[in-house]
């Protein structure tokens, strides 16, 4: 398994629900519930699902921006979940994050140059005099005008700000970038610029991405393999070609059929799911998807499905394939 850059094993993140007179713990919101997957060197792993499915929490837990409740996060063989203090900080150099709203994640009182230089200062990389050159070089790489280094985030458009966010992540030459909805807030024409930039950077630096998004078309475009999450659990993992042409999990099938396609002549068979996603504080017994599943049978109501290997790199958590 040497080509697995990141291997996540049974990762869980529970948030306690407190209530009653003494604010005692009365339950858990199982935001991420025993999720396992791996990311290979230089590949893009897409993580999709609807709001509340736990995809963002998974991304944040990977970087220990949130503490995992249980499970292992093996990065180059080292379990990040157990690291502390200085060792954790050093390990984090190799893992960086890009957020959905770059404006909220950039300090408005810092100039672009300062923003991109900050990670270099924190990790004490290179000589002080060289850092400025490095910043200019990174700005050039992500397509920011070098003359704008003295400007502040508010002077940039959404797409440009996302470039600043990417430049910051790139400054430490990481091996893996977790990108949480990096293009969702952008207009269509700007979205494709940022997607193309991320692909170019991957080529140039051999980066691996965990690309978290709800837009299935964008995920198809950028990913090599895709994981579909539902209610804190992984429903299906497959290489993208297979996931989009031969989805196995009834949820994946419904999700794909729900996406409106920009072709007015195409009339697709649509699986309309009844009802809403249940609350992760009180997930259904058995398979989390069974109350909405058109193919559910008795076993689904009582027994939680394990991941079943369907061949090559295709895995599905569904009793239909047992």
């Amino acid at each position, binding site marked *: 398994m040497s080509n697995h850059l990141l291997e996540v094993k049974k990762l869980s993140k529970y948030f306690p629900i407190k209530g009653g007179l003494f604010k005692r713990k009365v339950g858990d919101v199982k935001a991420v519930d025993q999720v396992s997957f791996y990311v290979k060197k230089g590949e893009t792993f897409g993580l999709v699902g609807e709001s509340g499915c736990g995809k963002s929490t998974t991304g944040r837990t990977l970087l220990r921006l949130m503490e995992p409740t249980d499970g292992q996060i093996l990065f180059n063989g080292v379990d990040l979940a157990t690291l502390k203090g200085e060792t954790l900080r050093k390990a984090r150099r190799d893992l960086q994050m890009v957020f959905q709203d770059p404006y909220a994640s950039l300090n408005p009182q810092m100039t672009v140059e300062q923003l991109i230089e900050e990670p270099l200062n924190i990790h004490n990389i290179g000589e002080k005099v060289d850092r400025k050159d490095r910043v200019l070089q990174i700005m050039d790489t992500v397509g920011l005008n070098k003359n704008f280094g003295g400007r502040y985030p508010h002077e940039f458009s959404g797409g440009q700000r996302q470039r600043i966010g990417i430049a910051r992540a790139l400054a430490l030459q990481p091996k893996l970038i977790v990108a949480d909805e990096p293009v969702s807030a952008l207009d269509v024409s700007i979205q494709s610029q940022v997607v*193309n930039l991320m692909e170019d950077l991957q080529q140039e630096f051999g980066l691996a991405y965990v690309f978290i998004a709800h837009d299935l078309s964008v995920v198809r475009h950028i990913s090599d393999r895709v994981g579909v999450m539902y209610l804190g659990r992984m429903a299906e993992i497959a290489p993208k070609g297979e996931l989009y042409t031969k989805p196995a999990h009834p949820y994946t099938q419904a999700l794909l*059929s729900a996406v*409106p396609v920009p072709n*007015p002549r195409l009339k697709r068979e649509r699986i309309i799911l009844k009802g809403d996603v249940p609350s992760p504080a009180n997930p259904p017994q058995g398979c989390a998807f069974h109350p909405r599943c058109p193919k559910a049978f008795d076993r689904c109501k009582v027994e939680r499905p394990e991941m079943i290997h369907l061949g090559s790199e295709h895995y599905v958590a569904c009793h239909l394939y047992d």
Partner: protein
Amino acid sequence: MSQALLQIENLKTVFENTKSAVTVVDDISFSMNKGETLALVGESGCGKSMTSLSIMGLLPGTGKVAQGKIMFEGNDLTKKSVEDISKIRGNKIAMIFQEPMTSLNPVLKIGDQMTEGLILHHKLSKKEAEARAIERLKLVGFARATDIMNEYPHQLSGGMRQRVMIAMAMSTDPQLLIADEPTTALDVTIQAQVLELMRDVKAEFETSILLITHDLGVVAEMADRVVVMYAGKVVEEASVFDVFEKSSHPYTEGLLKSVPNLESDQTRLYSIRGNVPTPEEFPIGCRFAPRCDKAMDHCFDHAPDLYRVGDRHQVRCFLYHPEKGTFSHE
């Protein structure tokens, strides 16, 4: 054009302060027939929402219609008094917004909010209004409509709230429903539910829908006709088939090519260079010229008109000017 339900003529919407005026909607014309769904498409800042708010007479702050006509059933809405407009609004013209939570009152029960307009506009008794509200809630798919009447907005999910908004909008049998990004805040599976509901409602009541969206997939699925806006101007108007199959404006073409395809793999996405300009910095000449791959010298200092390229298909681009050959190329 006697059957046009809504006809916008040379609409210009301006935001004024003491020093300057910013034109956010610039000389827009289009018309909608009864029972037609027209999609108003464009990126943020193109003026699509401001166009709909102009129609509703709900422009925020210092915004006002500076010029043009909004003909609805033969009457010019811009000439109407505030009282007359409010009689039409929420009655013959209804609107639903992107985020239903901000348009629902959090401290009032759904039932009270649904019946308020009916009692006010339609002089129904409380009982009649409640019966109508329950009927419409059932129509939008609430099996337990009577219970929903007694619930508060926070007790409902996003998709349910949007369905309540649609039920509320449809409670007065409007001729025109303006839907401003109605599914943008919703998840795809919930979006599919809401879009299907809007199609059912349209079929049952022959309501015309003015659909404002940036999602080309939603456009393809819902619209009969499409108006593409860029920087406050209409750049292309056509049937939904012509827009997707014979799109003529370089901006429309670029938008369609920028969207990743769910059905097949592409190696690289097309991208339109540069950024969407803000109203303060709209270029003179063609507003798309600085980002256009096909721009000619002429485009940078002359503003194009809409030129006809087919049946009910118009394009604002010098490439379709009848005397295009006389312009110098780069």
